[in-house]
């Protein structure tokens, strides 16, 4: 039998359709992997009994005609899953079991997939290393003392370690692309509004977007096709026809124009990343693409803007966790106010508290204009930079992150250096654009490095095609010896 750990989701789907492998066999395979990999701390919740039951039900079906026939999939624990605990990596939702299913995960199950479990993440998706989770940090399968990135660190790690053939994460400032880059996997953040936010625990509503994390670009196209949909339950969802990203995927990018933004050449960027970027440019040139130098002048304001807008929205979004209706409630306190204070004081971790405080501050009267309003204005300028560029180019190529995966504990005491990790990913969220990170090489220590492609709104197909072309030339090879087993 084939080694399921070394083939893509697309190939697995083919095997299922050809009845070479059953859903139950897949499920048993991943359960075994997961049980042997507890060390990595990828999962917050597993639901194997249910997965097995659903796999059996699937195998009894006659019709395998769907995008993800009987494929077991684990998802980030930010997606509400009906009757399966959903924690958002927080103590405050430690025992929260939704009675409803997020639109994005519903779409997966509609396409035939079955839920394996819920993947660890930074608390309320606030973090870049998966170290803020109440359920402990996640280990990168690349090396035992490396972070897997964040906030979708459980997802990237589980994917790289083949605990799931593909997964989904959420990306508010890079939470899909940065962990993908750190683990040698592919991660795509779609156009804001392409995937419904309904049923996803909100962090920063105007930035949050669900997206696929996969082992290659083809899988990514397939997963994006499965999860994207117009949803009238989400007012910011884009009403458009569903696309066949996987069917329309091709490497024909000759004649396209790719922009290289000079502002992404930041100080102190490791040479290896510069070289990787150049390698990407060379590959594109060889594929008949025209490389154009562009400028995104407001890039340097993106990070401060993000760290005003996102905490502002978060401070309001997280107000509902007050111990009154659901989730954790402290039993200390003499009155309502004290109950609130104790519940939130005990229920939230430090990073969440930090951002709620920042957010509350920037929205306060007297500070609103100087911070929140100004940030919104800058946000428009950042978007305008991109709009201007996309008059000239089809996509933009940048590194995904300014460094490779760092060590566990290395940045926890220095939030600013942690935030700097998002420097290349954040502008895209502020502009609502799609972007993909794909593995492009390793640094001298053997840690994966990613390249990021940014495209215009709703131009995911072209972006995937370009990524597909780069991927086939770059021939990234993941070397995992499964040391954790």
């Amino acid at each position, binding site marked *: 039998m084939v080694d399921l750990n070394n083939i893509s989701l697309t190939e697995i789907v083919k095997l299922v359709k050809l009845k070479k492998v059953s859903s139950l066999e897949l499920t048993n395979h991943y359960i075994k992997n997961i049980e042997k990999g507890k060390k990595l701390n990828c999962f917050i919740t597993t639901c194997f009994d249910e997965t097995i039951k659903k796999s059996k039900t699937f195998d009894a079906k006659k019709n395998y005609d769907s995008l993800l026939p009987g494929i077991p999939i684990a998802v980030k624990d930010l997606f509400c899953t009906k009757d399966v605990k959903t924690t958002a990596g927080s103590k405050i939702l430690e025992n929260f079991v939704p009675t409803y299913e*997020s639109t994005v995960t519903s779409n997966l199950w509609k396409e035939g997939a079955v839920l394996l479990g819920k993947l660890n993440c930074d608390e309320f998706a606030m973090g870049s290393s998966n170290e803020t989770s109440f359920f402990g940090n996640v280990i990168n399968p690349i090396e035992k003392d490396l972070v897997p990135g964040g906030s979708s660190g459980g997802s990237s790690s589980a994917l790289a370690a083949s605990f799931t053939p593909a997964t989904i994460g959420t990306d508010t400032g890079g939470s899909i692309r940065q962990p993908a880059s750190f683990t040698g996997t592919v991660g795509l953040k779609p156009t804001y509004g392409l995937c419904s936010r309904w*049923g996803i625990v909100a962090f920063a509503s105007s930035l949050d977007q669900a997206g696929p994390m996969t082992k290659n670009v083809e899988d990514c196209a397939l997963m994006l096709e499965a999860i994207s949909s117009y949803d009238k339950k989400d007012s910011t969802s884009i009403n458009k026809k569903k696309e066949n990203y996987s069917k329309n995927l091709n490497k024909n990018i000759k004649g396209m124009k790719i922009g290289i933004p000079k502002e992404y050449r930041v100080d102190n960027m490791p040479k290896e990343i510069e070289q990787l970027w150049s390698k990407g440019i060379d590959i594109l040139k060889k594929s008949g693409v025209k490389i154009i130098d562009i400028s995104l002048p407001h890039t340097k304001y993106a990070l401060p803007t993000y760290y005003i807008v996102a905490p502002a929205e978060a401070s309001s979004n997280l*107000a509902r966790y007050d111990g*009154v209706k*659901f989730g954790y409630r402290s039993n200390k306190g003499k009155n309502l106010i004290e109950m609130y204070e104790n519940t939130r004081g005990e229920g939230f971790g430090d990073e969440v508290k930090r951002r709620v405080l920042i957010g509350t501050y920037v929205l*306060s*009267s007297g500070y609103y204009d100087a911070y929140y309003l100004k940030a919104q204005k800058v946000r428009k300028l950042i978007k305008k930079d991109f709009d201007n560029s996309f008059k000239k180019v089809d996509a933009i190529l940048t590194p995904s992150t300014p460094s490779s995966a760092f060590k566990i504990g290395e940045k926890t005491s220095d939030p600013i250096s942690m935030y700097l990790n998002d420097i290349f990913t954040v502008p895209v969220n502020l502009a609502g654009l799609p972007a993909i990170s794909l593995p492009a090489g390793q640094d001298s220590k053997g840690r994966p490095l990613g390249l990021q492609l940014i495209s215009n709104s709703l131009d995911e197909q072209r972006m995937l095609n370009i990524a597909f072309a780069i991927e086939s030339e770059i021939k990234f090879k993941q070397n995992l010896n499964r040391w954790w087993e």
Partner: protein
Amino acid sequence: MSKEKFDYFIKTENNNWEVIIGLEVHAQVISNSKLFSGSSTKFGGKPNTQVSLVDAAFPGMLPVINKYCIEQAIKTGLGLNAKINLLSIFDRKNYFYADLPAGYQISQYKNPIVGEGSVTLDMPYGTKVVGIERLHLEQDAGKSIHDLSPDKTYVDLNRSGVALMEIVSKPDLRSPDEVNSYVKKLRTIMRYLGTCDGNMQEGSLRADVNVSVRKKGEKKFGTRCEIKNVNSIRFMEMAIESEAKRQIEILESGKKIDQETRLFDTKKNETRSMRSKEEAHDYRYFPDPDLLPLEIEQSFVDSLKKNLPELPDQKKDRFIKDFKISPYEANVLVSDNNISLYFEDVIKNSDIKLAKNWIIVELFAVLNKKNLDIKNSPVSSKNLAKLINSISSGEISGKIAKQVFEVMVNTGDDPSKIIKEKGLKQQSDPKELEKIVKIVLDKNTDKVQQFKSGKEKLYGFFVGEIMKASSGKANPKLVNDILKKELKK
């Protein structure tokens, strides 16, 4: 009609104080479902039975605007002669409270759906135009119930998320009377439009009242206090009077008014401080990122405008013009759409002058006494029209009509049936009447003599005797004619 002069000033030993009032009226929108969720808005349901996951702010739940509520707000705006803003924005108003599940209320802060407008009041001293500052849409909160347990607060979220229109007036009101008239007028307009039922007992209409005072003739406004959540017109009037007096006392003792939020204690008839300006919440308003800015097409506004029902002011003008009734009477008749419809129904087949009098005087008295509204009137419009026609045709006199009406009120019967059964038909046969007149005059020859020698007051006595002799059924006009003729003989 001579107009009275406005004279609501609070007089003290040395001063004459003017009271300045502005109102923020919260009107519950008539709609089947809530502003951002599909839950029912029906009043009186068992606690927490009309609550969706959105209303309870579960993780990942998102608001979706109810288009019908938008329509209702625009219609109300049009009814207030107001500017409709084609772009408006929903903001989050952040504060913690147990009956506010999300920790924020979705409201409109800087960009409301409706801008400036006006409401015209008919006061005894003439018409008064009250400016409307704005109307915005917002969610209602849930209800905290503190009196069911000594150590627990219960929360009912049925109301959480129900659509409210907050209608903010300019500080144009100057007396409790004007406030009374303003709230009633707003309510009438919204009832005509079908946008708010105005039911104050169920909390569908309540107001925050802003009060300040200044010496008569002064131009500058004084410092205001806001009296929160007053839920009856009478309480609004009482609260204004007591708050104005409190402020005047402070100012006359040389102190300053602190801008603050106050509550009205209906039992003690006084306002007391709730929180000062310093303690005021910082609501940290910001545009709700879950909702896109609300864009409305002008054509949509136009189509709503075209289909707007006739509003009370228009109806009043039409009544005055077409039916030749006084502005006062027209006002009374249009103050409740159902009354105006009843009136128009009655006059379809009967005399307008008689109809308006019978409705305003007789019918209203009965409805008042029985505490009924016009929809439950024991006298149907059809039957009242019949009664009026019996008077017009001379079948019965006005006096007899009152007897018939009394029976109608108690039985709801058709007046012609009552007239027939009780034999109340008017005596209009001149020969029969002549007989009665002659008998009466014969019996009172002395008085006839006195009349002829100049004591003309006795005329009424003769009429009374004749009516008595005919058991009230004699046709008064004929009696007059015959009596005059006989007395000249």
